[in-house]
């Protein structure tokens, strides 16, 4: 993911089950750095940024809950539990400055999410649907209008479905 021009951050699960991080900055890629943690086999991390020098990394832990680690511009926090019981990889997006959303497929195959805003996390909330993959959220700015957030995921028919927020969350519809 990227917080702005000239910067890319990549997060992956290493063969040691830890999260590894590398970034592209000033025209060059860094080496790989470990961020620790223990991720179950077959799942990977997700990341979002709500501004320059802000990184939020999310991953499923061995307790099947979501864990979060934050870069505040000078140092990494420890891994913090956000709870939940999820399936597969989470997704993360920043709908506005100072806000981060984490999405995950629940054991009921519904999409669940928590929003960090005004310095606090909301509780987990269901957005319904019948997911057969992890979620892929994205945010697009829309001129004078509020930002549009959408979450893509595979549905039971094997196609890609989305639920979009243009003020409120809309119904699940198939792409395209």
């Amino acid at each position, binding site marked *: 993911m*990227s917080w702005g021009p000239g910067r890319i951050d990549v997060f992956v699960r290493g063969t040691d089950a830890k999260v590894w991080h590398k970034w592209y900055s000033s025209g060059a890629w860094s080496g790989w750095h470990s961020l620790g943690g223990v991720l179950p086999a077959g799942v990977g991390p997700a990341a979002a940024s709500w501004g320059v020098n802000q990184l939020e990394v999310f991953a499923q832990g061995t307790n099947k809950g979501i864990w979060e680690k934050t870069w505040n511009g000078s140092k990494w926090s420890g891994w913090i539990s956000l709870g939940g019981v999820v399936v597969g990889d989470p997704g993360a997006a920043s709908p506005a400055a100072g806000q981060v959303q984490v999405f995950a497929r629940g054991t009921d195959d519904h999409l669940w999410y928590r929003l960090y805003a005004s310095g606090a996390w909301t509780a987990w909330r269901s957005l319904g649907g019948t997911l057969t*993959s992890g979620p892929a959220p994205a945010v697009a700015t829309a001129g004078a209008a509020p930002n549009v957030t959408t979450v893509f*995921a595979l549905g039971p028919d094997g196609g890609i479905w*989305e639920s979009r927020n243009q003020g409120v969350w809309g119904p699940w*519809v198939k*792409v395209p």
Partner: protein
Amino acid sequence: MKPRQRRSALFIASLLAFGIAGAWGAGWAQAATGGSKLVIYGRAQFRVPAEWPVIDLASSPTACIRFDVSTVYLGRQDRQPDCPALLVGRTNAIYIEPLDAQSVEQARFPKASTAINGQTVYRGIGTETGGSLVAAFPRLGVLATVSFGADKALSERVLASFDHVRGTPMLSRTSLPKAPRSPAKPAPPPASHGSAPMGTGSIYTGEGFDACAAPTTSSMSAWLASPMRSIGIYIGGINRGCAQPNLTSSWVVTVEGQGWNLVPIYVGLQASCTGFTNRIKVSEAASEGVAAADDAATQAALIGLASGDPIYFDMESYDDSNTSCVQGVEDFISAWVGELHAKGFVAGMYGGAASGMRDEAAIYNNPDYNTLDDIWNAHWDGKHQVFGDSYFSDTVWPNHQRLHQYQGGHNETWGGVTINIDSDYDDGAVACSYVSAGLIAPSPTAGIPPGAVGTPGPRFDLFDLGPNGTMEHTTWTCPPGWSDAESIGGTLSSGPAATSMTPGTDQEAFA
């Protein structure tokens, strides 16, 4: 039904206390010929000019809440209103409804409250350009919409008279109810997708209608029995005639999800040579056009419409032999187009074939004016087509840029629901639905999530692990909506991830 019970409870003390000679302020005596009267709705009381009729929506559930006649409307409307299809014009009127999660979506409100007669109140932000004062009284449990045309001061005085009815219990809450964050139950993806909606992004070709008040979502569902798949919605403007209790962002996403295409209409100042109260001042037409576009963009955003969506300015018929009047319209619309473009919206105009349409066609290639992107031609000739009008040439707006209103107000019944409508045949811009059909869908590998990136526009790019390990790419922008999925090659062994460093100029996909 629950809402009805709640409403009758609110009405315990209502509708009984009219005709009490008023303790009006000095201004009232001049404004109201017959003095004033007190109206009580639940815990709230207020004063209006004595001659204003009062309509109780509990006993007249299908009354049309219209702001073009001075009337008091009380209650919540949950039935299809009996409105004429087209109401343009606005004067002083008032609509009081319960303050709850639905009504609070009528406006944006500030964080901080103020007070009227000691009562906590939140005043709607920026509603004046659209000809309304909106006030939410959490301790009285009511939301008031006071419309005005030329006389804003009268509506301010009505609002300033709001008070608590002595002896009724006030509510304890001093904050506003929260608007719903999601529809009650997001529909799960069905196993098969047999009834694909007809929308194809931002251009819609086919039958449509417009109605003064946005129908309920259940009425819209019933009307899927019709061949129509577009509906004109009145999003704002000082001459918008009907109240829009249904028209919220939840309504928009629900109705788009049902498969409807939306045609947003804004009814602002009318031509200077018409009989409407709120008219263009020819010498200030350009700045008035800018203000209308700014407000239209705000109202559009409030219901979840975004950049790339069209907004049609409703310019009712006028005398186009009046050169000053024509000049005012042309200056106004040119400014409307320029400002809407600056806000990222597609600029349209609804108008009579022999006035607005003919005049705009005459300056189609004139570089002194911003050209409309789309027109909506009102010519009730019964023809289900967008070309071949006798008043202006087929060479202007030739490329899927036209809607045609071919029949005026009449009743139609579909799925058991009767609505008074104007009928349209469309081949032009409608609000960008993200629902579409008839395109090549991606074929993702089971269980592998796609990668997505959003960029300004709004635009979404979607990458997935397609057949044979190649990466597939699909994109949504407004216009034209979703693209066909295409393979962009590679041999992947994982799901893709995507990002953008400088939104709008680059995208990176990883796998």
